[in-house]
């Protein structure tokens, strides 16, 4: 935890990449997708910012943001209920006709007057489709030291299948300067894949967005950065830690499952940089007579009487007698009644699987049951 506040404000885009996971965002935003048993995606970025002393954070939302607002409240759990700064949610402003943002430039253009009124010298922009434990302070320090106009964060990884039509990769010279920024890269093998986190001086961001908006440009990366790499000094900042990137339903399943491998939870959750979330005051989880639980990540409030293996159980899940749950992700308050067999299934919140049912997906194609549905 840092002792002083960072000289940067945070802007988080809650709806970016919604299109990659249509099932999961049917009634929510990318930022409010439940992940890792008791969290939502936004918890990672928001906690990382709070832990880095970035305590003036605005979340730009586009649509379907009720669940996100419910989750965030006044930002208390992240210690962002502040008189100065704190958490601020920015929905589309209904001006004459309600206009939806189509890209980052649009979204930022709509908050220029707010941005101009802030005091922090730097702005950190971030999406919410990646769960990781990230130190924004170090990024900020590196940015200031390098003298760059913009710093952008990337990691070395293969491009996930789901993100092939929606990603940015970069080429970097020996000094760490970005020489090329490619849209929708599909090359196989390890690439420098952008994590869509940027640091820039607030005044220059305002200038760039204003110019771009006037010219009808939409995308910050493609239309501003990529076109101006010779004029703007854009630096690459590599993140080498553990990260979980959501690119489609399959990757959602895989990233939950990957947390079951030894050591991964410890990498994502660093005790020195806790990830905060909304508290639900659940009881501890009860393992009743007859329960057999192996290799699972289990949140509080569950009641388990059956067999559960290789699965992630969110808060308040119930697995009754005689049921077998294997390789599943059961979101909050999912109930599996007696004598069911459930394998390779992702249940959204509050799904009810009635007794005696057999539900089976495969490793490559997990079955998804939408929110509030009864099987």
């Amino acid at each position, binding site marked *: 935890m840092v002792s002083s506040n960072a000289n940067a404000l945070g802007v988080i885009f809650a709806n970016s990449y919604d299109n990659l996971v249509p099932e999961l965002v049917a009634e929510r935003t990318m930022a409010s997708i439940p992940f890792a048993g*008791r969290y939502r995606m936004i918890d990672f970025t928001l906690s990382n910012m709070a832990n880095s002393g970035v305590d003036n954070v605005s979340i730009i939302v586009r649509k379907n943001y009720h669940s996100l607002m419910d989750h965030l409240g006044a930002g208390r759990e992240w210690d962002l209920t502040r008189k100065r700064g704190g958490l601020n949610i920015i929905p589309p402003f209904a001006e004459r006709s309600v206009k939806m943002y189509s890209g980052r430039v649009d979204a930022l253009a709509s908050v220029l007057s707010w941005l101009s009124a802030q005091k922090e010298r730097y702005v950190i922009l971030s999406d919410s489709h990646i769960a990781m434990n990230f130190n924004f302070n170090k990024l900020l320090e590196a940015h200031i030291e390098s003298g760059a106009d913009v710093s952008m964060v990337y990691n070395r990884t293969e491009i996930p299948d789901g993100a092939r039509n929606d990603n940015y990769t970069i080429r970097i010279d020996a000094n760490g300067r970005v020489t090329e920024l490619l849209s929708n890269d599909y090359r196989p093998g390890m690439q420098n894949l952008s994590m869509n986190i940027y640091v820039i001086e607030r005044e220059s961001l305002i200038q760039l967005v204003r110019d771009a908006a006037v010219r009808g440009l939409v995308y910050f990366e493609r239309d501003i950065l990529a076109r101006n790499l010779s004029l703007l000094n854009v630096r690459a900042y590599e993140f080498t830690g553990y990260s979980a990137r959501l690119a489609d339903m399959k990757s959602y399943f895989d990233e939950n499952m990957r947390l079951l491998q030894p050591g991964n939870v410890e990498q994502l959750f660093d005790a020195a940089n806790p990830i905060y979330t909304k508290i639900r005051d659940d009881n501890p*989880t009860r393992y009743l*007579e*007859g329960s057999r639980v192996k*290799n699972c*990540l*289990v*949140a509080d409030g569950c009641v388990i009487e059956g067999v559960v293996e290789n699965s992630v159980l969110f808060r308040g899940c119930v697995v009754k007698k005689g049921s077998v749950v294997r390789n599943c992700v059961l979101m909050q308050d999912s109930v599996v009644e007696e004598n069911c067999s459930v394998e390779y299934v992702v249940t959204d919140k509050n799904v009810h699987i009635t007794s005696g049912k057999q539900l089976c997906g495969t490793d490559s194609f997990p079955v998804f049951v939408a929110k509030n549905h009864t099987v």
Partner: protein
Amino acid sequence: MAKEMIAMILAGGQGSRLYALTQKLAKPAVPFGGKYRIIDFPLSNCVNSDIDTVGILTQYQPLVLNEYIGNGQPWDLDRLHGGVHVLPPYQQATGSDWYKGTANAIYQNISFIDRYDPQYVIILSGDQICKQDYSDFLRFHKEKNAEFSVAVMEVPWSEASRFGLMVTDNDDRINAFQEKPKEPKSNLASMGIYIFNWDILKAYLIADEADPNSDNDFGKNVIPALLKDGRRMYAYRFSGYWKDVGTISSLWQANMEVLDPSHSGINLFDENWKIYSRNSGQPCQQIGSDADIVNSMVTEGCKINGTVKNSILFPGVVVEKGATVEAAVVMGGTVIKAGATVSHCIVAENVMVEEGATVGKMPEEGLNIAEPGEVATVGSGVKIGKGAVVGPKAMVSNDVKDGEEQW
């Protein structure tokens, strides 16, 4: 803005019979039931009963309790007007005093209570496990047009002489009070929970303080004085679960009873009467491939890869592969290494049980929650060395070296 009723929780108890568990914290701050502390019960009862102003009277080792209560937000008691306040003794113009007795503790905070101008004050104990609707108690108090009411439990006549007893008429009006009498005239035991009309309480507290021979205690002084004056005093019968967890065996017993709500009557899983607590903020529990967990409660931050049976594990407990935990209460941050056996005991926070160590022992006649017998205890921060043995009767508050035995 006047409040109808505010609560004062007596939380100054040292809990000396819990010795190893209360070296560094007050009894109300002792962890209970997997993710709670004892004080969560009266606090949650208050908010669930719509009482939004609570004073907590502390004086023994208040650090942990103060930090735990904080601004009261976990109990929804961070209020603009009212909320929860921790009230330690303080220096006054006339000098300063520790709280001399239960009545004196309230006396010293008369000005706190007066700020809210309440009609009624409920006096609660910070060291009992009990789910109780205080609004129903108040309804009774008002119905009887009482000046003082006390919550009572019916106890078996054979045990009555261990309690403070209220002798009542057919209308539940109290006409005598017996403190641990040889020949009980009643089997209604006081739970130490009182509702007073504030004007009456205030007058009696001032009179009691003026009496140099008084112990300034509710049971010994204030209640007898009310009786002597023929005040309207009533006994409110409570029949739910109630336990004073003042001893190691009763604390262990109450924890075990949480695992069996249908028989014990203590149901922490009731959505309509939630018990709130401050969250540890740790990630989900990780259950390994070699774990075997039956009839147990496990919470956030735990990493379990051993055998856990009939036990309650608090946040962040680690049970390594090959370790066995049975009929044990294991508090937050404790690590139980490979091959260690921890049974029939209470292990406090942040204890390290090294490889192959043994803590406690299952009774030969098997688990009997009603008659626990011996319960081993390990104090917080203690290290139990490799292969060391902590006997079934032992209460350990210092490190036990490798291979050493302690009985």
